[in-house]
């Protein structure tokens, strides 16, 4: 029912949304929960396991029951708490876990089977036959139990991530938080105040107390206005601080525009704060009495919030049941709201006597049961005068207040039991630099909250070495909070602890009986405290039951570990921006546009994009293009952008010594103007990377790496220079992006070059400066194809122009551009290596390059490469493979077996690393590793690809198929 007046809703802005297809009227400022309560809707969902009718319990993010699905189609989102979702026009809300409807749910049969479905029943029931668990039982159970479902489509919603920095992060904008923020801000500190609600004020918005002579909500509004006007303050509403991490870093989830039909959904913040104050307040807990889960049974403080803040009354005839003083304010507010409350206080002598109250107070009373089919109808109460039953449409429960200690536990802090308030309070200094104020620290009066917020800010300012500017702490109500423990009321019927996971008192006792006596074991056996609410309401209650069942005290029993996040955080928020192309940066070569313009499909190589092949008219498959490009290079000339290979400029008096230390072969003896192929080993002796090393001058080298390992090699060189050989006077820089570099390969490569540069006379494995069309560049006579070829480098700004020019020139000579596929075939024909072969488990010996490891010097990996077991016939050696039948297929990833051996794992003698069709030879070729392969050239073996079901008999050969003498390359 909506009250005629009052509340913090904007009655001038009516809204309308739909719940399960029904129109619901609301006002600006309503949550889905408050609007449903105002509309008289009690049942909002079915429970997780037993499909029991459930209603709204709380008024905040701790809500265990009112989980709904919001939105439609691909954007629909399950498990949204109705207590957090703000209403907007056109919002679509659906209840969950019910079929065909919330009212008539077929699966509610589970409730009748409840005696069979106690904690651990899966483990006991579904043991045999073993294979049925994964195939049958688990899928069926998962379908029966559960929360809402995702759409299964890609989510079109947009989120973002962001960073923020401050001197002081104040977590929670209630009286303590506002006071802490004001105090710190007035002292000039850089303050962030974050609150998960859409407006600041915390409990001041829910209660009717005066602060500084004004209504609390008004004082809060004034404080917010003051803070908003200060340039050193950032106010973050709808922002839940979800985790506390090392070095003052906090995670926070901002629900940016979830209160609108469109816009940004979430922002996941990482906030770096020098100091923090936790003012997260306290969460009210229930009492486990029989049938305490019916719609209409709510937390007392929540009912108070609905009445005062949202002018929404969940019922007319209200029973209040509890063990502490907070019931009386609620009852008094309900009287003013026009309801008819009666207080049943479990304490024999409540502090506040019945006299003078405008409502009935019964001391020493306990609720022992409830009835009502789809919502509360009657409450059964044991009083000193005997059992009585009263009609009620709302039952307010207060079992006490739990300080929200969660964040203080994120770095292994353990909360401490406070006997006076019968709750856990934060351990001091649990998070470095974080203080706790207000109800989160167990201070439950408004005056106490304001004072402790001020004190915490003073402490933080001290730590920040900032002077405190005196700020008056406003007057507010003080008083003691008294509570007498009451956890469970015994009686027939199930008493619920964790409504979200359908865990009862009996389940916890069963866990204890079956020796799951540690609170962590109990949690896992019963599932108490799991899923979205993480046991915010049920945790302390459940461990009190466990403590009792195991004969221990509550402090000895302890809590389970609270871990981040404090509220559910969508992966879409944490990973915002990482969808599709946002997953990784994209690096583009200077020839990218020209390649795309020629229709080349681009493939990823590391972060780079490289052309796969360049299709010409009439070609319908990649193979046709690839074959043509290979022939073109073998017979005329081809152009390939090789700029993606890593290039590192190395300079200094000790450059030669440094490279001798890095490479396994000697680079110091390379003459100026010469190039040498080199291998780098890891410390463990295995090959890390290969490439060429050109000596540009006396103390000046250019190292090239493979595309994929460029970063790794650079990192390794930094490590070697800073840590292993700081004595060497050497400096180096990546110049990968400075130079656009193109391979000009094939028998007519020299003609292409000379058309641009004039006469070229460069021996194989030499380098020289070159001028090309007025631009200074570098020319290298190196080959990755086995042909007479060059690589030419110019400053990147000229890359695009040079690529187009080279392609045009070569096309005039029967050549053209070639892509990665042809490049790969060319190098396989020639037996050249890539990271398919240098895959991290191969040594120089395996690759047939053992003699490259120089015995004239030390280098990284040399000693370890000489270990026994790395240099003999027991190793798998690099070999070539040729099918005996012309049409025999060779496939990378396939395994090798001795002819006649069964193709099973135990018999695998090796594997294929690279394979492809060679247009030069007219059949497939492959490179691979074979046990003692170098001694087996000429042997016939079988290649078996189990995945593609291909078997090919092939001959083992040397790895170099094409021009083994190298005449074409050198000539």
């Amino acid at each position: 029912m909506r009250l005629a007046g009052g509340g913090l809703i904007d009655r001038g802005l009516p809204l309308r949304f739909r719940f399960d297809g029904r129109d619901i009227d609301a006002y600006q400022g309503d949550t889905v929960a408050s609007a449903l309560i105002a509309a008289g809707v009690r049942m909002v969902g079915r429970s997780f396991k037993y499909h029991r009718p459930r209603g709204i319990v709380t008024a905040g993010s701790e809500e265990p029951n009112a989980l709904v699905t919001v939105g439609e189609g691909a954007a629909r989102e399950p498990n949204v708490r109705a207590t957090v979702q703000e209403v907007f026009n056109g919002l679509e809300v659906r209840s969950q876990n019910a079929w065909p409807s919330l009212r008539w749910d077929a699966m509610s049969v589970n409730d009748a089977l409840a005696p069979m479905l106690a904690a651990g029943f899966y483990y006991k029931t579904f043991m045999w036959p073993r294979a049925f668990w994964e195939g049958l039982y688990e899928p069926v159970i998962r379908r029966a139990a559960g929360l809402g479902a995702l759409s299964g489509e890609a989510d079109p919603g947009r989120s973002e991530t962001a960073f923020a920095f401050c001197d002081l992060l104040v977590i929670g904008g209630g009286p303590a938080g506002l006071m802490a923020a004001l105090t710190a801000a007035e002292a000039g500190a850089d303050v962030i105040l974050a609150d998960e609600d859409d407006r600041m004020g915390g409990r001041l918005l829910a209660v009717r107390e005066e602060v500084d002579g004004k209504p609390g909500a008004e004082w809060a509004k004034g404080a917010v206005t003051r803070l908003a006007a200060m340039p050193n303050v950032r106010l973050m509403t709808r922002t839940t601080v979800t985790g506390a991490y090392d070095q003052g870093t906090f995670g926070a989830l901002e629900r940016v525009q979830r209160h609108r039909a469109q816009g940004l959904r979430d922002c996941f913040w990482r906030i770096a704060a020098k100091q923090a104050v936790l003012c997260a307040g306290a969460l009210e807990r229930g009492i486990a009495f029989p049938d305490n889960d019916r719609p209409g049974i709510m937390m007392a403080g929540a009912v108070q919030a609905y009445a005062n803040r949202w002018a929404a009354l969940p019922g007319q005839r209200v029973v209040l049941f509890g063990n502490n003083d907070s019931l009386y304010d609620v009852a008094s507010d309900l009287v003013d709201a026009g309801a008819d409350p009666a207080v049943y206080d479990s304490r024999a002598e409540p502090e506040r006597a019945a006299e003078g109250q405008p409502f009935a107070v019964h001391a020493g009373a306990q609720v022992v049961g409830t009835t009502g089919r789809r919502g509360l109808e009657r409450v059964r109460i044991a009083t000193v005068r005997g059992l009585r039953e009263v009609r009620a449409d709302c039952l307010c429960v207060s079992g006490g207040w739990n300080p929200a200690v969660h964040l203080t536990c994120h770095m292994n802090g353990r909360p401490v039991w406070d006997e006076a308030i019968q709750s856990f309070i934060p351990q001091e200094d649990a998070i470095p630099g974080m203080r706790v104020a207000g109800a989160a620290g167990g201070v439950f009066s408004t005056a106490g909250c304001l004072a402790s917020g001020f004190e915490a800010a003073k402490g933080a300012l001290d730590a920040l070495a900032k002077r405190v500017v005196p700020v008056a702490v406003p007057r507010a109500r003080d008083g003691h909070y008294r509570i007498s423990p009451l956890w469970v009321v015994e009686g027939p019927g199930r008493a619920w602890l964790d409504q979200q996971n359908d865990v009862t008192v009996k389940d916890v006792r069963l866990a204890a009986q079956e020796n799951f006596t540690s609170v962590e074991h109990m949690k896992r056996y019963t599932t108490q405290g799991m899923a979205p609410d993480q046991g915010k309401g049920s945790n302390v209650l459940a461990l009190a039951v466990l403590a009792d069942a195991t004969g221990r005290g509550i402090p000895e029993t302890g809590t389970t570990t609270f871990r981040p996040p404090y509220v559910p955080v969508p992966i879409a928020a944490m990973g915002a921006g990482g969808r599709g192309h946002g997953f990784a940066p994209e690096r583009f070569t200077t020839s990218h546009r020209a390649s795309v313009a020629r229709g080349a499909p681009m493939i990823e190589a590391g972060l780079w994009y490289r052309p796969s092949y360049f299709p010409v008219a009439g070609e319908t498959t990649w193979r046709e293009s690839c074959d043509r490009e290979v022939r073109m290079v073998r017979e005329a000339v081809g152009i390939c952008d090789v700029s993606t290979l890593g290039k590192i400029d190395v300079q200094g008096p000790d450059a030669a010594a440094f490279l001798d230390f890095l490479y396994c072969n000697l680079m110091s003896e390379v003459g100026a103007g010469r190039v040498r192929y080199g291998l780098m080993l890891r410390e463990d002796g295995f090959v890390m990377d290969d490439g060429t090393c050109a000596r540009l001058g006396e103390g000046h080298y250019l190292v090239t790496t493979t595309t994929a390992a460029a970063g790794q090699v650079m990192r390794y060189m930094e490590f070697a220079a800073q840590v292993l050989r700081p004595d060497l006077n050497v400096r180096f820089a990546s110049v990968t992006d400075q130079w656009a570099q193109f391979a000009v390969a094939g028998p007519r490569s020299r003609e292409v070059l000379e058309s641009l540069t004039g006469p070229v006379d460069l021996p194989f494995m030499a380098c020289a400066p070159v001028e090309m069309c007025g631009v200074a560049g570098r020319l290298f006579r190196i080959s990755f194809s086995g042909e007479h070829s060059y690589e030419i480098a110019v400053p990147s700004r000229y890359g695009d122009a040079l690529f187009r020019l080279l392609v045009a020139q070569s096309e005039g000579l029967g050549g053209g551009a070639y892509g990665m596929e042809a490049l790969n075939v060319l190098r396989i024909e020639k037996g050249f290596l890539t990271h398919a072969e240098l895959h991290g488990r191969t040594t120089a010996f395996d690759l047939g390059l053992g003699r490259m490891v120089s015995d004239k010097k030390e280098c990284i990996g040399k000693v370890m490469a000489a270990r026994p077991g790395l240099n003999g016939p027991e190793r798998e050696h690099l070999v070539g493979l040729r099918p005996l039948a012309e049409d025999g297929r060779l496939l990378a990833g396939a395994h090798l077996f001795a002819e006649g051996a069964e193709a099973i794992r135990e018999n695998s003698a090796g594997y294929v690393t690279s394979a492809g069709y060679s247009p030069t030879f007219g059949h497939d070729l492959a490179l691979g590793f074979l046990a003692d392969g170098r001694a087996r050239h000429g042997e016939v073996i079988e290649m078996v690809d189990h995945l593609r079901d291909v078997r090919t008999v092939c001959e083992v050969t040397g790895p170099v198929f094409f021009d083994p003498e190298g005449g074409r390359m050198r000539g």
Partner: protein
Amino acid sequence: MVRLVASDPFGEALPVDQAGLRIEVGDAGALTWISPFAGQEQAVSAALEATHGLRLSEPGRMLASGEARCLWFARGQALLCGPALAADLDGLAAVVDQSDGWVSLKICGEQHVDVLARLVPVDLRVSAFPSGAVVRSLVKHTGAMLVRTSEETVEIFVMRSFAKTLVGDLREASEGLALRG
């Protein structure tokens, strides 16, 4: 004779103009990477001072003199921006032309800090990152060097091949910010 035409790493991607934000091509000029050899820092500084009027910058700082700027680049490394290197540093320092290796853009306007806060894990507000400050960090996933050139402007350097990714990431961040209205 055929001439090679220089291309622009950002192409049509820049400038970007939005309310409160402008992203435009930086004007870094020639870029010379300088890393003094062991014990030569003072000599290099002296040579730079004599020719360009500025010394090697301290870590995290930029020095400027006329058109020339000297940016701290990394441990023991600096980047001379603007004119081509005129000092003779032979034997004193490793010197590499990076004019085509790194590119820069400028992001300016009152929203520039908020846009960058979506991508860079460093406090770039003027109070923490004043004019002349330099930091090596990430812009989303991309390694970058950021320089505050004025209260309203941050210049971002990345390796040339990342230019389009940088603009795309800045665009996306600014669109997200714009949605907040």
